[in-house]
């Protein structure tokens, strides 16, 4: 158990970074944190989030811009509804609530990104490694259990 380190993936809207000067473009990613920059949070396909979980992420954070601050005007609005329904769904099938988080950064949120990432790391540490939604991999060549 002590060998385990949390692995989280952050889908980060490139424009929301502008609100947070603590993290420069090419920032040093803390251990266990993989950051994927996206042009807009609205671009994040929920299947991508599902796939991320299946590939071994213990936690996910999606960061976009606050309402009315989307560089593409409405991307974050579209994103919000998608993520709300996805999160509700994932919880329903047994995923712990704190593993998948969404945040909206605004002009006044300097330094908040760091706090969000640290917060998720802490939550995931408490929850332990992701067990739900199965482990990737094929069963050995036996009759498939039905």
């Amino acid at each position, binding site marked *: 158990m002590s060998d385990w380190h949390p692995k989280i993936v952050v889908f980060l809207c490139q424009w929301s970074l502008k609100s947070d000067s603590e993290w420069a473009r090419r920032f040093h990613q803390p251990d266990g944190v993989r950051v994927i920059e996206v042009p807009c949070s609205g671009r994040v396909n929920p299947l991508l989030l599902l796939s991320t979980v299946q590939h071994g992420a213990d936690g996910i954070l999606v960061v976009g811009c606050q309402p009315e601050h989307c560089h593409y005007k409405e991307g974050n609005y579209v994103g919000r509804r998608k993520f709300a329904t996805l999160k509700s769904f994932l919880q329903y099938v047994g995923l712990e609530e704190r593993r998948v988080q969404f945040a909206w950064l605004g002009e006044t949120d300097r330094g908040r990104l760091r706090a969000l990432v640290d917060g998720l790391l802490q939550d995931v540490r408490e929850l332990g490694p992701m067990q739900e939604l199965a482990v990737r991999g*094929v*069963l*050995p*060549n*036996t*009759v*498939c*259990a*039905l």
Partner: protein
Amino acid sequence: MKKTIAKRDVARFLARLLEDYTVYAPTRVAEIVSFRQIGSPNDVDWDTLVTRKPPKEVFFPQTEVLFSYEQADGGLALRSTEAVETERIVWGIRPCDVRALLVQDRVFDTPDARDVYFVNKREKTTLVGIGCNKPLATCFCTSLGGGPFEKQGLDLFLTDIGDSYLAEALTGRGKKLLGEDYFKKPTKADLKAAQEVEEAALARLPQPVDTETVKQRLDEMIDSPFWDEIQAVCLGCGVCTFLCPVCHCFDIVDEGSAACGQRIRNWDTCQYCVYTLEASGHNPRPSGRERVRQRLMHKLSYQPVTQGRLGCVGCGRCVQLCPVNIDIRQTLAELGASA
């Protein structure tokens, strides 16, 4: 060689088999009965004639790893799937499902090409069949040259004669299983009971269909509007092919990453629109009409020519489970009837 075994001794027999063999039998999990590996004789479901998923998956698993790969020492290391080493028994397989296996043998085990995965499992498996005393209303093996007590392809065949089973060994493998002391010599009454049970079962089943006529008519009907009626309601869901004991199409995919992964074989179905979709975008079977037609023609016209066997064994699973009640028996009746 024929012996009898009292039903109360069957659990002991199975327990004995479990010591030396991996045993697959019909088991019930959440109301669905299919062939699975059993751990104890209590796992066996005795009440179900036709399992939901056919036993073909014991030889041709729905998802099978062909080999794994891994980046190593600047190259790619391949690791083959382990061959099955332990002897296996499939217990409680029905004559129709065995007949279907015989068709699959002609696909996977030919002089020109032997599928090592299938052949390995087939060679390591003893088939213990059970006759069907009370065929279901959806059974029609007799329409297509089969029967509820057909023994072809089996190693050991059991007939339920009330308090006991008549056990007939048909091969050396089957004979090997009859060594235990609870196997007794059958009496004349036992043999008579077996015969009566068989006659009663046959009386419940339909008459043979003239499959020659069916084939001829199918070959003439390529452009017939007959296909429009069925395909109008067919969902293209593929349930018929997944549950069919004969169907054997597969798709091969590589899954993983550049660093490591597996080459996998999955069941596929000719009923999906992407099945014959070519890279150019052309699809020789663009609509349900062509796909439904192809399924029936493959089973009733092409396979008799290419494999010398019909592609349908009358198990009735597609009839039971088609979501829109497309019934191949209706098609056979319409085609088999004289013009």
